[in-house]
């Protein structure tokens, strides 16, 4: 009985379960509390199953495919679970699992304000869409699930629809997503057409595309269309504008999913299409991916640094991390083209590993931001501070996220970036001098991005959780604030006073643990992942990676480079412990005293460094990249022109790309439509003249 349970079956069943959750949700509309607990538990369960299926499938390096008779009879939905899709199933499933647990607590906050039924329904649909995207094995079902994902997340962003920024963001998001989807559709169209020349429908299946050989020109067109289509979804600069709008305004559990995993489906698409369906037939494909990756990485983190809205900051940092992932994949493409399978495997795994990592820590960070929002109703960091006293758990977990995302050992972010660096360092073995000279500069840019993101998250954590409350009203918001009506122990302010409930904490704790484990056991993870590189680039790095055993990660060769996260962790902890004990043998008293601050007096909370001031030096240095408007207005008391009562500092940092790309398009289309409107100018004679001229012209055209 057990024997005939396959990974595929498990994954499929998890999807069924999700659909069931939707139906149940529809019926439980009346009892909101029950609705939340039931449907989110089901969702969590199914996501867990999906990720198990994925782990199992990848581990077994196993492929199963089937067709279910939906869609057009001649083109039923093909589903397929291979290592690649299995891996992404893990990425999506795992985080969705954490987030669903988290939602059990988070969504309760909406009760009493609005019905959460359609939030729940679209949440489930959203996850279903992502699973289907990963599993689907023909163009039609892929696009259907792709757009299903987009549409449901659109409604999720729209959830609090009375706020205008939600509507604007949702609209922008859907338009960009749809345009991207059309590009993908076209690329599939090319592939299908070249496969069968549209004699029938079977050209649309991925299998047919895998077998087919494509002429270089068409292949390039298909690749570019697909890449830009997916890039629009992944938020690669300059297609990123929707991302910092949509992610912040969505409910935090949703933004966690959107940032954490929805972007990854785009990565999946790029890998699937370029490596699996088309096959790399030009080295500069890789170069394009690499360049876009680098641009996104650096600009993304720079923009992130300029934000003061916590969730916006996280959104921009997603742009950065997508960039880092693309760097790995781009390198992999280049290596593949030059037939260096081992290096290709290394860089591909680096990219995919970062995909997994980013899902974990970005999910964690968004959940943390959600918790803060939940407790304080405040999105602007400038108003926060000192929350580490009020919500110790959240603070600690958020810190874990920050460390991981800033690529600091021994957490997971570091491993993947280290592997990427190794890939860069190995590029000199390429035989093209030009690339040899240029790729290292890419490495430098990556280093820059990494360091900047460390700065960025020092700012994020420091300003949000450390120091003292910066808000204009002198303490964190009173506790009976609307969102947290379920109510916890009615402590006002005090220690742990604002801490969120256990569901949310557990969700975050699990994510944090995932970050740690992925960080200290990279060798095992890579051993597990090698089925991927086997499938895509036909080589694996496990043998060399595990050469020294599980303790040391040694890509390529141990004299090349090695890294042992466990030892780092253990030694540091040991030393810390030792020092601590030694210093506490002799009891030295610890006095609490007011700030010394170089002997300055009357230090108020508003004097602390804020996000704006923290990022000032970097803003100065990289200012040319932004459109910055800052003005200082001094407010003078009447009759005293010399000593200003207070200074108003106003700073506005804007994304250049909006003005560069998007506004022109909008203006142009309005202009055209105004011109076209002249056609319809009311007088019937005119219309008759149109018909008259039309027929004359056609008759002439005939001759």
């Amino acid at each position, binding site marked *: 009985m057990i024997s005939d349970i396959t990974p595929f079956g498990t994954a499929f069943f998890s999807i069924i379960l999700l659909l069931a959750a939707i139906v149940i949700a529809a019926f439980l509309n009346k009892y909101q509390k029950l609705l939340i607990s039931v449907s989110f538990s089901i969702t969590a369960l199914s996501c867990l199953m999906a990720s198990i299926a994925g782990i199992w499938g990848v581990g077994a390096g196993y492929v199963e495919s089937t067709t279910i008779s939906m869609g057009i009879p001649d083109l039923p939905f093909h589903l397929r679970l291979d290592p690649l899709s299995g891996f992404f199933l893990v990425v999506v499933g795992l985080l969705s699992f954490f987030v669903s647990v988290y939602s059990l607590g988070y969504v309760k906050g909406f009760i009493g304000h609005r019905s959460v039924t359609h939030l729940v329904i679209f949440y489930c649909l959203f996850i279903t869409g992502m699973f289907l995207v990963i599993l689907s094995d023909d163009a039609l079902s892929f696009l259907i699930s792709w757009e299903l994902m987009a549409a449901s997340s659109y409604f999720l962003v729209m959830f609090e629809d009375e706020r205008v920024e939600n509507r604007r963001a949702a609209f922008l998001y859907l338009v960009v997503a749809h345009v991207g989807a059309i590009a993908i559709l076209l690329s599939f169209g090319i592939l299908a057409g070249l496969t069968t020349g549209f004699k029938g429908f079977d050209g649309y299946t991925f299998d047919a595309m895998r077998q087919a050989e494509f002429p270089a020109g068409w292949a390039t067109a298909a690749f570019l269309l697909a890449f830009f289509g997916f890039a629009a979804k992944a938020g690669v600069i300059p297609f990123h504008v929707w991302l910092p709008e949509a992610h912040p305004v969505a409910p935090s559990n949703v933004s966690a999913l959107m940032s954490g995993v929805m972007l990854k489906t785009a990565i999946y698409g790029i890998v699937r299409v370029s490596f699996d369906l088309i096959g790399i037939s030009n080295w500069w494909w890789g170069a394009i991916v690499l360049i876009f990756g680098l641009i996104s990485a650096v600009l993304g983190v720079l923009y992130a640094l300029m934000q003061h809205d916590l969730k916006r900051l996280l959104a921009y940092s997603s742009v950065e991390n997508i960039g880092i992932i693309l760097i790995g994949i781009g390198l992999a493409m280049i290596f593949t083209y030059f037939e260096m399978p081992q290096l290709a495997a290394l860089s591909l795994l680096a990219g995919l590993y970062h995909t997994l990592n980013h899902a974990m820590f970005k999910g964690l960070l968004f959940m943390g931001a959600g918790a803060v929002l939940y407790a304080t109703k405040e999105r602007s960091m400038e108003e926060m501070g000192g929350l580490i006293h009020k919500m110790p758990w959240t603070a600690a977990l958020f810190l874990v996220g920050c460390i991981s995302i800033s690529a600091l050992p021994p957490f997971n972010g570091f491993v993947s970036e280290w592997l990427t660096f190794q890939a860069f360092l190995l590029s000199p073995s390429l035989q093209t001098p030009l690339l040899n000279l240029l790729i290292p500069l890419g490495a*430098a840019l990556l280093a820059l991005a990494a360091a900047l993101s460390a700065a960025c998250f020092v700012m994020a954590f420091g300003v949000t959780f450390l120091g003292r409350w910066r808000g204009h009203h002198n303490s964190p918001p009173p506790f009976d604030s609307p969102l947290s009506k379920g109510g916890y122990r009615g402590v006002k302010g005090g220690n742990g006073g604002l801490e969120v409930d256990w569901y949310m904490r557990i969700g975050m704790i699990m994510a944090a643990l995932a970050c740690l484990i992925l960080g200290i056991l990279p060798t095992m993870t890579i051993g597990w992942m090698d089925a991927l590189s086997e499938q895509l680039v036909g080589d694996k790095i496990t043998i060399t990676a595990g050469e020294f055993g599980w303790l040391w990660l040694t890509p390529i060769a141990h004299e090349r*480079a090695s890294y042992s996260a466990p030892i780092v962790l253990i030694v540091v902890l040991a030393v810390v412990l030792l020092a601590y004990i030694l210093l506490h043998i002799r009891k030295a008293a610890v006095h609490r005293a007011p700030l010394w601050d170089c002997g300055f007096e009357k230090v108020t909370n508003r004097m602390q460094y804020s996000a704006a001031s923290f990022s000032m030096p*970097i803003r100065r240095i990289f200012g040319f990249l932004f459109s910055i408007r800052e003005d200082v207005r001094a407010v003078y008391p009447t009759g005293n022109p010399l000593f200003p009562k207070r200074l108003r500092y106003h700073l506005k940092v804007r994304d250049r790309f909006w003005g560069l790309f998007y506004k022109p398009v909008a203006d142009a289309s309005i202009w055209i439509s105004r011109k076209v409107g002249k056609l319809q100018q009311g007088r019937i004679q005119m219309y008759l003249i149109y018909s008259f001229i039309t027929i004359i012209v056609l008759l002439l055209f005939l001759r």
Partner: protein
Amino acid sequence: MNQIYPVIIEILQIAILLIAAPVFIGWIRMLKCWSQGRTSAGILQPYRDIAKLFTKDVVLAENASWIFRFTPYLVFGVTVLVGAIVPILSVDLPLSATADVIVLIGLFAIARFFTALAGMDIGTAFGGMGSSREMMIASLAEPAMLMAIFTVSLVSRSTSLSQIVHVITSKGFILRPSIAFAVLAFILIAIAETGRIPVDNPATHLELTMIHEAMILEYSGRHLALMEWAGMMKVFLFAGLGIAVFFPWGIAPKDNLIYLPAAILFLAIKLCLAGTGLVLIETGLAKMRIFRIPEFLGSAFLFATLGMLSYFILE
């Protein structure tokens, strides 16, 4: 014998690190005093400072959180770990496989990360200022550092330190333009990372010029002691790193104790020279404005890149 030998080396090296770091700083300060015609407090003054701090009570700011208290220990621990990895005396350290150069940068980064957080924890304007500037400098230094490493790894086909040392020593002394450039870059970066003049002035508490000091302004007692000590070790380690990567001759090869005394001697000499060089720079230059630092590190990046290019073009 061969089993315990590396362990001995390891312990010896950590011991040397802990002991010699203050002496090295003392030496630098002494030279400085002489060069400025002051009478110095003696080479052992750093010991006295640390000892004194250890005996003092701790005064914590009101809303300092656990991060503020945890940071000194972490920084200390990380620095010691780095010390256990950089081959100062001999190449066969059991821990050397734990991390290559990039990981070392990562380790320094995590120390910096927490220091910066500690600076923001107590919620003063200075703390934030220090953290902000520190992170800015770090993020500019990192790319240059990576390019330097890249150049070296081009020569040695590796980023693991003992391997680099091994390769370079075994190849014997060759004049390489790429390495020369890399050295230049490394020196500039080291100055920036360790917060010496002209980037930062460790000796000042002038509000608006301090960077590193601003972050640890509120520390006292054993916390401050640990921070100071770690700082000294950092300087020492950067010197050691530079030596190991660029002038490794004299570092003991695998499996024989005979070389050890010689290695220690060589190390002492090299460190003295390094200290002298540093003092010359510090007395020669004045501290630069904060927004000149990008140019400073930019030139470091330029040197490193030139090194890389010259490897491909000239070698």
